[in-house]
């Protein structure tokens, strides 16, 4: 038989080509539904917002146009700047407090909890899955003028009258947000700290570093990626949060999200609401890009 070396590679080449085509087909079939879905219900809505942010409103109706008037109005409006400042301030405060609260607990779960590790971690995350409106309702019960905290304060004699600044104030918003985002901060921080080998800390101590120096020069730098991811989530979510300030913040000092909602639902001025939303979105994307850069740097330095 004249079986040369040619038929086999040709067949195999055909087979791999067919395999390649099959693989491409599988890839397309698997990805396409999700991509189409996210395009229609995520990309298109954002683009629509962008488009109408250049339109104008005439007697409560949107008129197609190409004007920067909405953006100019946003930046020349004092109330808008105050709302933006309040949002940034609140988000920053919440992020810092969450980081400070989350670090010891993440450290405890990762390094000191022993066999209870899994359970304790899940127990931190679990409240996050309860509907935000229910969590906010709980804080209204706690913080209200006749709420649990005030009644505890009065009955212990710490204050004579219930204190009124607890609910319906930026303080209440901050407490609600810290409560909401703490689990979100613990999760990435735990992952970072859990990945630190005990040997590395022990090595630092062998080299005569005290516990504080070992923490400062080994544990903290190595948990930086987790700190950054947690901070990014906290700050970004805090900036755009709506339910918590709307129900706990009282409505005297508005956050950006409340102004956007007000423009859309009460003033029916969609174009200017869209312009503010786009500004918020740009800030979010800039922060995201920045934190990703920091994250890469922090995780790169680890190696």
């Amino acid at each position, binding site marked *: 038989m004249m079986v040369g070396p040619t038929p086999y590679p040709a067949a195999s080449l055909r087979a791999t080509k067919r395999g390649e085509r099959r693989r491409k087909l*599988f*890839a397309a079939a*698997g*990805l396409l*539904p*999700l*991509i189409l*879905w*996210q*395009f*229609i*219900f*995520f990309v*298109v*809505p*954002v683009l629509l*917002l962008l488009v109408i942010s250049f339109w104008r409103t005439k007697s409560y109706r949107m008129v197609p146009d190409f004007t920067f008037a909405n953006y100019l109005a946003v930046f020349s409006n004092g109330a808008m700047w105050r709302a933006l400042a309040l949002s940034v301030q609140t988000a920053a405060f919440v992020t810092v407090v969450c980081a400070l*609260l989350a670090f*010891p*607990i993440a450290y*405890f*779960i990762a390094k*000191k909890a022993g066999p209870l590790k*899994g359970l304790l971690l*899940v127990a*931190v*995350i*679990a409240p996050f*899955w*309860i*509907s*935000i*409106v*229910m*969590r*906010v*309702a*709980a804080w*209204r*019960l*706690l913080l209200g003028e006749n*709420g*649990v905290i005030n*009644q505890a304060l009065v009955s212990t004699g710490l204050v004579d009258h219930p204190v009124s600044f607890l609910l319906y104030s930026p303080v209440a918003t901050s407490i609600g947000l810290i*409560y909401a985002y*703490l689990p979100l901060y613990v999760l990435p921080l735990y992952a970072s700290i859990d990945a630190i080998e005990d040997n590395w800390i022990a090595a630092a101590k062998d080299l005569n570093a005290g*516990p504080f120096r070992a923490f400062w020069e080994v544990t903290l730098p190595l948990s930086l990626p987790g700190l950054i991811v947690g901070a990014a989530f906290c700050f970004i979510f805090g900036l*755009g949060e*709506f*339910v918590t300030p709307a*129900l706990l913040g009282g409505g005297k000092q508005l956050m950006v*999200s409340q102004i*956007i909602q007000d423009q*859309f639902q009460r003033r029916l001025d*969609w174009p200017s609401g*869209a312009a503010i*939303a786009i500004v*918020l*979105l740009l800030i*979010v994307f800039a922060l995201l890009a920045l934190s990703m850069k920091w994250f890469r740097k922090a995780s790169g330095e680890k190696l």
Partner: protein
Amino acid sequence: MSTRVSTASATGRRTLLGLYSTLIYLFLYLPIAVIVLFAFDAKPIPGLPLTELTTSWFGEMLQDQKLVGSLLTSLRLATMSALLSTLLAMPAAMVLAWLPIRFKSLVMSMVLGPVVLPQLVLGLGLVILMRAAPGTVGEPAIILAHTTITSSYATLILYSRFLGFRRSYIEAAMNLGANELTVFREIVLPLMRPALISVFLLAFTDAFGEFVVAWFVAGFTETLPISIWTSLRQVISPKVYALSSLIIVVTLALSLMSQLWVIRQTRLASKVRYA
């Protein structure tokens, strides 16, 4: 001598850390406990001191057509969203994790965008989109909106699971002559079942509790978070606390169980690997 001092201070630090952690858990669970507690308060406007306890609010809650109706609506819509997002996420995550594709980072950022997008912004965008199809406002729009959010989370979680999947099993099966469909049915699906169930549950919980986006596109549909929001604007009835406390207990139990189950499954899998 010095070692004893240092162990003593280490023990001290450890106790302090344990104490601190207890306080954090108290902070996390106190608000939830307060809701559950007030569900049993006999006064029509709940508050301290708790002089008389009752379980009657639970009965009255079941009589409240509007509340029960919104609960059923939420359960129905969240089931749909969870199902849809798991179905969308699973094949996509598999492709992203296993096959080389072009523009991967673009695809990833498009798929994961809804996670970081402020929900208010997504809600408004969808409101504008719905103007083109006014018939979808209400239940279909809520399902669409929640699926958009939850399929992002689902893809993210499943992607990491598929990355850790032992693909040598698949190669072995294919060497034995199995085609893709058989491999998927006999190997991928059974091994991924825990991950798929936990993703479904997470998507369900998220869709069940989501408020902002649903509120914008709901029209006259009332989901449970929407009806709680409405009642928060007035004097809130203890019936709402009764229902909320039931849901909180179920949510906590479900998330604890599903997560612990996943942890155990991974531990079993790693044991098999080392054995």
